[in-house]
């Protein structure tokens, strides 16, 4: 805050401008300014795009995982991508999921038809992982998107 006291030699009734005028910042939407032509875009004002909104439907139940490996290339999931995983979605046949199988975290496509449960890769070099009795399987969450920062 700048000095606020008046100089001692100020004459009564004479206003001397302060050397450092205190400034007051006002949020712009609270100040009505009518000068010149109204902006032609004013009627179209909208919220700026938000990537969270694009990728995340349910923030409370959404978690991120990073990908290591190339077995999901066919589904456009590459090494180093970050997956958006929503735990609130009930996993269904055909969805890409994060699964815990026998102590490992995997990303796979869930196959669930006619009593057969398997986790499929999206790369011909990786065979399907058949889930048999006695195996530990937890479908942790459904992958709803992915993103990557190129660090440019």
């Amino acid at each position, binding site marked *: 805050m700048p000095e606020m006291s008046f100089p001692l030699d100020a004459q009564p009734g004479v206003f001397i401008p302060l050397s450092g005028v205190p400034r007051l910042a006002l949020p712009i939407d609270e100040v009505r300014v009518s000068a010149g032509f109204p902006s032609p875009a004013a009627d179209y004002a909208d919220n700026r795009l938000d990537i969270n909104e694009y990728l995340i439907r349910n923030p409370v139940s959404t978690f991120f995982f990073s990908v290591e490996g190339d077995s999901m290339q066919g589904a456009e999931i590459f090494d180093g991508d970050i997956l958006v995983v929503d735990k609130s979605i009930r996993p269904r046949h055909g969805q890409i999921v994060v699964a815990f199988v026998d102590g490992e*975290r*995997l990303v796979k496509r869930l196959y669930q038809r006619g009593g057969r449960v398997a986790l499929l890769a999206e790369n011909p070099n990786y065979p399907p992982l058949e889930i048999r009795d006695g195996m530990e399987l937890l479908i942790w969450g459904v992958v709803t998107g992915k993103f990557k920062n190129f660090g440019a």
Partner: protein
Amino acid sequence: MAAFALVDCNNFYASCEKLFNPKLKNTPIVVLSNNDGCVVARSAEAKALGIPMGVPWFKIQQEAKRHGIVAFSSNYALYADMSNRVVEILSSFSPNIEVYSIDESFLDLSGFERSGYHAYGIDIRQRVADWLGLAVCVGIGPSKTLAKLANHCAKKKLAGETGVCDFTSISPAERLALFERIEVGEVWGVGRKIAARLASMGITTVRQLHDADAETLRCRFSVVLERTVRELRGVSCLDLVEVIPDKQQIMSSRSFGTLIYERAELEEAVASYIARAAEKLRAQDALAGALQVYIRTNIFKPEVPQYQRAMTIPLTEASADTRVLTQWGVRLLRRIYRPGYGYHKAGITLMEIVPRTNQQFSLFAPTGQVSGRNDTLMTTLDSINRKYGRGALRLAAEGVTKSWQMRRENLSPRYTTEWESIARVWAR
């Protein structure tokens, strides 16, 4: 009629650890307190092995190894984030919620009885499990004390195995029969001391406390215990505490990972504690009027020379400026520091906290001219640290190496709060 629910996460810290680590599925695990001192949380498997709560880790380390128990340092960043997620989900079940601790919340369920409270409790439990993979127990009753007791019943499976216990839906006779089987110490607000005194009066079960003469209890104990008895009888005396009042004191203290002998290192520790506390102070838009610094040696090692000392100063002008507080903190420390001792713990307390709007300027201190710019600087400091992580920007007084920092040797990654720490999934 009033109805409250107490929702409590089962083995919360241990469950958070297991959530992201598939290798731990059936592994007994424990979580240790600061400096990896004592067991503060146990998974179901560790409980089944008889690992007691609060036991010093070094005492059971050998035994734990034999049983294959895995120990974790407290990963507060993870637990806090998961706790906030739980609270967010619970908030969708009731507009009135009291966050009682990191893993417990009271919900006011009045007005939600249409589908039946028990069914509502099942819904709560199911949603937390589906959305977060965490198990909770729900206790429901016409008072907070009964909700807490119902939660105990749900957890110990004394009334069904659904993980939900609703006292409003079981008959009074059934409820009393249940109370006969529960020790009085399980009642909310009845600690070990009170339980012992009650026992000397012949009151050992919840049923006996329920039947006791409230008037007598008020005279022999306190109005608090009388209220507990009324609550046990279904009369709601305690409302939800929804707004946490601003703190009157902010403390920041830690035990060190290793003993500290040098004053310079203690100064760094004190400066860091002040930085953390001042940030909290600014977050509640307040100023501190006094500052205390204390140091002490390890009181659990009577064989080494002991020393402890605390000193408080009132500030000429209340402040939330890390630099001002640090200056005073270091000055205080220099006054109380004695060489030749191995210090085990240091701490600081900000006291006489007042809202910034009530600021009383000092009559004598040079004031006014720079305080506006200070605020801007501190705001910038806080926002940089919020963005780049705690301590990204700090006073040099805090030091760089921080050799005094607490021991957290078994810390799991901050899976949900740090990009570098998110869990990896295999695409193979």
